[in-house]
């Protein structure tokens, strides 16, 4: 081996060793003092202004009920082991003079009185930031466990990172991040971070608490098969004030967010804003205190709700009376069926096969209409449909609406009385009932009908195969699959979610995701030449072209893959040191010619792309 090869090889060592070496100096990172545009990398915001903004959030923070249970440093939490437990941290120590005290750093990791990751919160250890540097990472802050709440055999620890006072605000504690962790037998076994706050227009995004931490609390509700932890905290950003509640499930040594980040589209993390006290009803019902009840589907705990919904819900009318209850267990989401555009013509089929995360329904018109207007058969049909599709109603916030399907309630004059829209993320939008909503339909001429008012394909999980290439005389096929979207009645292919799938004898052996600069293609012909299979003297494989507009300089470039057994291997140029799954992007032109005996592809400029199948390399031999 050449010494340069050894040097290159050392750049590919296991990630954990790099993490370790880089992390060894994470407390005091070295910087390059370039003497010029370093500000491009570390733009300095206006933290003081931000803190003023954040401070404003505190004004509305005294909102939650408070049933404080003292949890001081070194004491291992409290609370009953069953029923609802609420833990707040009560701090009696006065805040320290922000101008004079030295920073007390957290003790080393090996201390034994840790809960979760950090030592117990102690007010006297919280430093005060006086001179800001632009980045919170550069400020003296501490990490701590704020509270410990008992939950059966677990301790549920609320931890915060980057805690500090800001000069001139001795009553407010700021924290850069919050999360819950699960401790069992003194050891952290699971944690799940709460969502990061929106960055303020300028400055840091932080949580803000009263110094006695009275406006942040953890409730634990122990249910039959699992438990729910509800963290209530104050959200302080420039444009959003008020209290938030984050729900987490606890089961089988895991704590999981019940409304996690949408793994498919990175949509905002929804939070449930409970304005009333959580009360456990029976063993599995959580009542928000309003006219909506959430029936926890405990069997589905530990799963991200975007994979498996957690809630079933009752429909209630405005008087709080239960109209009907849909509490069937949700099945695991399956991708076994990929909805196609033709499927969407059949709305019943669509509903029955929708992968539902949650559904939102305007309660009053729907429930009232169900009571007053629908015949038993009609109501039964609708409810059966909803139930069979595992659709439920919740009052999750509306956002991210894009595609979906809308069901409308119509009278015989085709007037829309109310509608239910199942949106992109398969939530139901609030219906657009008219201002003069009227239920006076009792005669034969006013028989209510349910009909499809609009059809817009969803763009999340549904997808269809839009291109298939079989490689001659081989077991392999390559598919291009993209999501189907809809906008203003026009169907398009959402290529941001495009995936190339490789199968061998019908068995999936690989997937390749490629970015696309133009994410909406209405013309399927765009995809015609996107896959180029090749069978050569020494091997077999294919090239795929990133989906780009013709104007893009890289429009005619492709990445190359080798097929061998059940493995799909990206090919790289010998000079490409940044190996990632998508291989080296190389110019291929518009009419590439395959020369099997030379293991080469000739591009339209006459150059040859020669494939070294043995070493997974592809090189350019210039004309």
């Amino acid at each position, binding site marked *: *081996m*050449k*010494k340069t*090869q050894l*040097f*290159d*090889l*050392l*750049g*590919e*060592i*296991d*990630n*954990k*060793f*790099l*993490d*370790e*070496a*880089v992390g*060894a100096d994470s407390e005091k*990172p070295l*910087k*390059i003092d*370039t*003497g*010029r*545009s*370093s500000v491009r*990398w570390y*733009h300095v*915001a*206006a933290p003081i202004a931000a803190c003023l903004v954040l401070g404003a959030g505190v004004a509305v923070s005294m909102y939650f009920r408070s049933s404080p249970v003292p949890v001081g440093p070194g004491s291992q939490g409290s609370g009953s082991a069953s029923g609802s437990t609420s833990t707040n941290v009560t701090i009696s120590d006065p805040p320290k003079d922000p101008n004079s005290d030295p920073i007390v750093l957290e003790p080393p990791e090996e201390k034994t009185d840790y809960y979760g990751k950090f030592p117990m919160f102690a007010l006297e250890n919280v430093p005060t930031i006086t001179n800001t540097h632009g*980045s*919170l*990472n550069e400020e003296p802050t501490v990490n701590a466990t704020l509270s410990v709440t008992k939950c059966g055999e677990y301790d549920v620890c609320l931890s915060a990172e980057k805690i500090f006072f800001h000069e001139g605000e001795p009553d407010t504690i700021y924290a*850069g*991040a919050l999360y819950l962790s699960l401790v069992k037998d003194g050891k952290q076994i699971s944690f799940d*971070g709460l969502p*990061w706050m*929106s*960055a303020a*227009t300028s400055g840091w995004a932080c949580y803000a608490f009263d110094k006695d931490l009275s406006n942040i609390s953890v409730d634990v509700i122990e249910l039959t098969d699992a438990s729910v932890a509800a963290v209530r905290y104050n959200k302080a950003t420039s444009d959003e004030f008020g209290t938030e509640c984050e729900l987490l499930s606890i089961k089988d040594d895991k704590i999981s967010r019940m409304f996690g*980040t949408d793994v498919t589209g*990175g*949509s*905002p*993390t929804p939070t449930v804003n409970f304005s009333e006290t959580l009360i456990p009803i029976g063993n599995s019902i959580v009542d928000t205190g309003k006219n909506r009840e959430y029936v926890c589907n405990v069997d589905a705990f530990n799963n991200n709700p975007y994979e498996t919904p957690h809630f079933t819900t009752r429909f209630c009318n405005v008087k709080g009376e239960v109209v009907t209850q849909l509490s069937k267990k949700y099945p695991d989401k399956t991708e076994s069926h990929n909805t196609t555009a033709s499927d969407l013509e059949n709305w019943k089929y669509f509903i029955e096969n929708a992968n539902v995360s949650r559904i939102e329904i305007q309660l009053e018109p729907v429930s009232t209409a169900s009571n007053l207007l629908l015949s038993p058969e009609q109501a039964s049909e609708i409810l059966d449909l909803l139930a069979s599709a595992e659709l439920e109603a919740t009052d999750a916030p509306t956002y991210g609406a894009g595609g979906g399907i809308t069901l409308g309630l119509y009278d015989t004059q085709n007037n829309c009385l109310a509608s239910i829209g199942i949106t992109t993320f398969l939530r139901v939008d609030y219906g657009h009932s008219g201002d003069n909503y009227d239920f006076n339909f009792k005669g034969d001429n006013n028989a209510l009908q349910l009909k499809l008012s609009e059809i817009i394909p969803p763009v999340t999980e549904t997808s269809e195969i839009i291109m298939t290439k079989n490689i001659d005389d081989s077991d392999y096929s390559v598919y291009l699959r993209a999501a189907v979207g809809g906008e203003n009645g026009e169907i398009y292919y959402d290529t941001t979610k495009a995936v190339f799938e490789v199968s061998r004898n019908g068995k999936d052996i690989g997937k*390749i995701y490629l*970015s696309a*600069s133009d994410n909406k293609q209405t013309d399927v012909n765009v995809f015609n030449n996107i896959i180029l299979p090749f069978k050569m003297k020494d091997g077999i494989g294919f090239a795929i072209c990133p989906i780009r507009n013709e104007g*893009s300089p*890289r429009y005619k470039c492709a990445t190359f893959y080798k097929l061998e057994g059940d493995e799909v291997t990206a090919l790289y140029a010998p000079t490409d*040191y*940044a*190996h990632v*799954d*998508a291989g080296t992007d190389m110019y291929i032109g518009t009419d590439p010619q395959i020369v099997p005996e030379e293991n080469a592809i000739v591009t339209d400029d006459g150059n040859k792309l020669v494939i070294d199948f*043995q*070493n997974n390399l592809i090189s350019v031999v210039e004309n």
Partner: protein
Amino acid sequence: MNNSTAIPLSDITAEAFSERVFPCGNEVTGLTDTEIISLFNSRDERALSAVSEKYGSSCARIARNILKNDQDAEECVNDTYLKVWESIPPERPTSLCAYVTKITRNKAIDRYRSERSEKRGGGEVPLIIDELEECVTDSGSVELAAERREILKAINEFLESLPAPKRIAFVSRYCLCETVASIAKRLGVTQNSVSVNLGRTRKALTEFLKRKGYEI
């Protein structure tokens, strides 16, 4: 989370890219790797500010160690950010730190080799490669990817067996291309101690690989 508009970045230069993705007043700090990757997945340009915030210093140091040129190092780091932006998604690195670090190293070495051919540059790379010469007993080229993978596996095994301080020193020197002086400062030991330890570790690596049957 704030709504953000995805920006088409695939075809712009690294420099223009850098100007676009670090808007003033939209700072994100303290995000976990998972949260940063989530921002990448949602094509939120704040992901790059977050990466810069969290790993910019490390990337810059690695690039400068290799290139010994501030301007080149800065461009290299910007290239790294662009590569990360382009590759996540679909990539879902388990360690964002290592992912960014490797890309930086590879980009810097790429640039170093390119510039060396033009008689420019310098940095630690020639010294590091010379030091590694004692680990190499066969000057022949290893061409087979399979063999490279086997050797890499053995190197990982060797690193696993080392005490942490020695491992950190070795990785810092030969993977992150850090100077001996810098390693000594970080670890709070003398430069001589680092040099001696590196020499012993190189020898140990050679012996280890021999035992494994690799006469590299």
